[in-house]
């Protein structure tokens, strides 16, 4: 297993002093992602998907429960994992630093590791279907789909073993979504990374996920193989979601 969450709870306190309330963003969730596998996490807004992704990325420490990455807890220093975990995040508008050229953005994970970029940036841009010429452009010259492609190139340039895709296609047009999802599948077949694909869109998840976890109100109500899930969902909420598709 590349990533294991066991009985993870994340709580936040909200509200004014004296009337503080404890809010569980996720409650007792357990999930696992195997090598080379894509786990889809679906659920509506506020169901705890984003908190789950932050826990999976090591950005959020769980209040209780254990998280294992590659069989070990997250190191105290984020840097020890540099290059092994990457993410493609939600907003194509804010996914790239507007002050950096595309090439610099794509090369950054390598720069963090102190590795020379060489021809890797051009290769990475080719792999996501953009062409090396994009390296000199600024993000505002790119469309939403192109920006997400750049984000994917940036995420994969260090050949991570695990990638979190948090609503990575949700903000895109449906036709562009399909292109990006195809690209992700091709790249996964080529590089063999594991992925956590988080989305509110069952249709998109169906397209890429090997297994599916359904979240509701901070809990996982059902985990199943994708094929089984789409033919015979067990939980009533899953059925409800599928019917609305």
């Amino acid at each position: 297993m590349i990533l294991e969450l066991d009985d993870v709870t994340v709580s936040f306190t909200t509200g004014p002093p004296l009337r503080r309330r404890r809010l569980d963003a996720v409650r007792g969730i357990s999930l696992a992602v195997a090598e080379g596998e894509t786990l889809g996490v679906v659920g509506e807004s506020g169901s705890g998907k984003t908190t789950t992704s932050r826990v999976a990325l090591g950005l959020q420490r769980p209040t209780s429960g254990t998280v294992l990455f590659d069989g070990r807890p997250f190191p105290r220093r984020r840097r020890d994992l540099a290059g092994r975990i990457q993410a493609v995040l939600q907003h194509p508008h804010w996914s790239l630093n507007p002050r950096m050229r595309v090439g610099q953005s794509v090369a950054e994970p390598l720069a963090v590791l102190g590795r020379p970029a060489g021809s890797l940036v051009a290769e990475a841009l080719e792999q996501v279907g953009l062409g090396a010429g994009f390296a000199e452009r600024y993000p505002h010259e790119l469309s939403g789909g192109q920006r997400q492609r750049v984000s994917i190139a940036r995420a994969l340039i260090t050949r991570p073993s695990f990638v979190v895709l948090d609503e990575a296609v949700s903000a895109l047009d449906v036709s562009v979504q399909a292109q990006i999802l195809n690209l992700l599948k091709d790249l996964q077949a080529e590089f063999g990374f594991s992925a956590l694909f988080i989305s509110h869109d069952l249709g998109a998840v169906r397209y890429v996920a090997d297994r599916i976890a359904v979240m509701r109100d901070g809990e996982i109500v059902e985990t199943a193989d994708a094929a089984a899930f789409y033919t015979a969902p067990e939980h009533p909420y899953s059925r409800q979601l599928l019917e609305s598709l």
Partner: protein
Amino acid sequence: MKKLRLDPLSLAGLACLLLLVLPALGSLVDAAGDPDAIVGPRLQPPGPGWWLGTDNLGRSVLPRVMEGVGTTLLLSSAAVLVTAALSAGFGVLAGYRGGYLNELIMRVVEVLYSFPAIVLAVLVAAVAGPGQLAALASIVLVTIPLMTRLVRAAAVAVAGRDYVTAAVISGARLPRVLGRHVLPNVAGTIAVQGTYALSVGISVEGGLSFLGFGVQPPQASLGVLIRQGGTYMMAAPWLIIGPGAVLVLAILSINVFGDGLRDRFEPRETRSLV
């Protein structure tokens, strides 16, 4: 990056500002005469040989105003650079890190903010002794609270953006995250606030020197000239009109230029969403 384009009004502001500064920096002061030389009778109205009149010692007012603008703007600019550097550091750190560091920096800033500018300036002059250094330190202390707060606010917004998160996930350490991602994206705010701080700086210098705590005569600054002119306001109003008009013009042109910069930098985020 898009090209820096400004509307005609703020370009006019910039041109006006340059028109005020360039003579003071170049050799034009010499052409207008020695600011310390006695050129004619005392308290003469404007006329040939003394285009803005003469002061109570018979010195020509024109070169003194030119020298004064130079002193005032140089002092304010130096102070604003110090403010910008400190605000950028503190604001970005407070905005990005949050937590106790944020609380500490913001509470200190709020205490500073609560002092009226001139009280703060007089306090500094009392501690450091009157002079250019006191004026510079006062301008920094007066301008730093607002700038730090605004830089922090901008940094909070930038800190939540996906490219910052992506850099953190990649393993980037604090200096890289702040230096390459947060700071360049709050630079617009710093530039805009810098111009406003400059105009505040000019009026603080003016006020402080007017009270006699800032630049000391015989060196001319706008505040020094207005103070000296005030004494003879009835007999020789040109002594105060010249430097006063220049002070107003300088502040006005800086503010107009600052508005143009702000329009250029700040709505960008909302504009580019569509």
